[in-house]
């Protein structure tokens, strides 16, 4: 029997824009818990949302990307580099912002961020300069010499983001960056994360808040119980459903009259209440909204609202998880 460990399955050459690629990625802990089961991913660079409930495998995937864990099967490539080849060197290209609090209360933000710049390989003087720059970027320029112990939750989250950014990473791993923030703080954090793509930094944004992903990401990966549920560009996933929602009035039987007229044109509809009607326009072609508008005018009804219905990420996630 050869005394050589089996080589991990190799992946075909990565495209230049590949952020994360996995092939059959699996991890089973020694106690038998399956954290990831046969994950196949090919995620392009940009802002990517990693969505899943608690325990879905998001943090495990981060640990595998950082080379802190090794898969029990399969292969993983981050920013085009196989993690198995140089699990420690890969970290020089990544910035990591953990979900939990990880700031020493007795250090100033500037000192803390500069320290992590040095730990990421920057010489002391550039590390201090970078710390100053990124703290300015995240909006902590005034507070950077204050001890972190006196910071609010929002300021602490920004400090964590600054330490992840200080070494100018190719890819930023953000674990629940909006956790614990009030609505204003959340908006500000999402604005910041949204701006990162413009700086050429790719983001992998782990969260269970689908609204956050829909707002700042252009790609989404949904995992559940260690398995891939859905992955793709958000624009394509939330494409139009072909349903037109109208709100009409002007007479007591407005909805019924419009439904009958639509039926004659071959378009099915469902009344949601006395005024709102969902119309399946897939048989109406591209002119369907115009046809509906004209019918409403012909029937002498009042049109209060007309909108195309899109699928939300929540619906997609629930469908993917096999839930109604």
């Amino acid at each position, binding site marked *: 029997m050869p005394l050589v460990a089996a080589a991990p399955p190799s992946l075909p050459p990565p495209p230049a824009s590949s952020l994360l690629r996995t092939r059959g990625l699996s991890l089973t802990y020694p106690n038998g818990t399956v954290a990831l089961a046969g994950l196949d991913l090919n995620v392009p660079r940009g802002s990517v949302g990693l969505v899943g409930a608690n325990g879905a495998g998001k943090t495990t995937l981060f640990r595998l990307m950082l080379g802190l864990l090794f898969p029990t099967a399969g292969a993983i490539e981050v920013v085009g580099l196989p993690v198995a080849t140089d699990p420690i060197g890969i*970290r020089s290209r990544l910035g990591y912002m953990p979900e939990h609090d990880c700031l020493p209360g007795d250090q100033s933000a500037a000192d803390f961020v500069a320290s992590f710049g040095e730990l990421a390989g920057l010489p002391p003087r550039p590390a201090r300069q970078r710390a100053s720059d990124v703290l300015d970027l995240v909006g902590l320029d005034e507070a950077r010499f204050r001890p972190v112990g006196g910071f609010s939750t929002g300021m602490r989250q920004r400090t964590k983001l600054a330490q992840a950014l200080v070494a100018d990473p190719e890819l930023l791993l953000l674990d629940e960056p909006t956790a614990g923030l009030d609505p204003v703080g959340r908006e500000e954090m999402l604005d910041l994360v949204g701006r990162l793509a413009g700086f050429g930094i790719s983001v992998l944004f782990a969260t269970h808040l689908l609204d956050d992903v829909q707002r700042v990401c252009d790609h989404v990966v949904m995992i559940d119980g260690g398995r891939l549920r859905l992955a793709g560009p958000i624009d394509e996933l939330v494409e139009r459903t072909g349903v037109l929602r109208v709100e009409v009035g002007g007479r007591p039987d407005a909805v019924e009259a419009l439904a009958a007229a639509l039926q004659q044109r071959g378009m099915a509809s469902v009344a949601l209440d006395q005024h709102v009607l969902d119309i399946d326009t897939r048989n109406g072609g591209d002119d369907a909204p115009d046809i509906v508008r004209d019918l409403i005018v012909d029937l002498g009804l009042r049109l209060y609202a007309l909108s195309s219905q899109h699928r939300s990420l929540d619906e997609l996630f629930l469908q993917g998880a096999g839930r109604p």
Partner: protein
Amino acid sequence: MSLAPTLGGAVYDRGYRPYEGPRGGRNYARWALWRLSVRRALGIRRSWRQKVLPWTLLGLATLPACVDIGIRYATRNTPPYRLDADIEDFLFTFKDYVGVSTLLLLFVAVSAPDIICPDRHDRVLPLLFSRQLTGVDYVVAKVSAMFAIIFGFAFIPQVVLFVGQMFVNKNGSIDYFQDHLDVLWKVPISIAILALYYALVSVALASLTDRRMVAGIAFIGLMMITHAVGQFFIESARPDGTIMSLVQLWTVPLVLRDIVFLGHVEPLGRLQGVEGAGFAAVFVYLAVLTASAAVLLWRYREVDL
């Protein structure tokens, strides 16, 4: 009412600037962690409160050397046989000065928890291990930082003592230097043995808790309890020495110091008349180092994010 235009004033959005300078690898990360740990223990770039204790202890540890030099200067023209016995008690040898004082124990009990415990308490470890550092790198950086701090703490007073004695010597500095050349290697080696021992033991103990106070008390407690147990064996064996005196953990590097300075263990000490005492001391020394290293590697074998 409109505001007057600001002359020459402008607001610039500096945006984000990529970093294009030099970037170190894993060795540099280890070196950076070492440097940051030393800085932290000595209170550098921290508030004055964090500086007071380490620097006061270092000052106090240097005080005996200053007293020794002062006495030697004041009595430089007095023949040794005319010196008062009380005054002679204040004078000591380089070997004696490589000792384990209360100040050293206190310094170690304060410094080791300070460079280890906050990383776990504040949950900074996951961030450290997301950089180019492994558990072994972390242990090596922290132990070597503690080694350097203890070495400095024990070595600086020796330098003061050596240079001071050299200058107050009535036969001239050059003669003194030539007569004490052996000190130039015996002292650093003895201090290195002492520093490695205390660095590993103190950092290993501190790694078992995330509370600085608990770690400091545990270190002092370990030294006191093993001292008391060892003392029981020593009293039981009087007037002979006993191998069981090595249970006193704080004395182990001192036996090795005696071997470095004298070439054998102290003939009238706790190991008086014990066959193979030197080998036993070396064995205990290595066993303690191995056990401490094993504890550290176990504690930092993996880190949860």
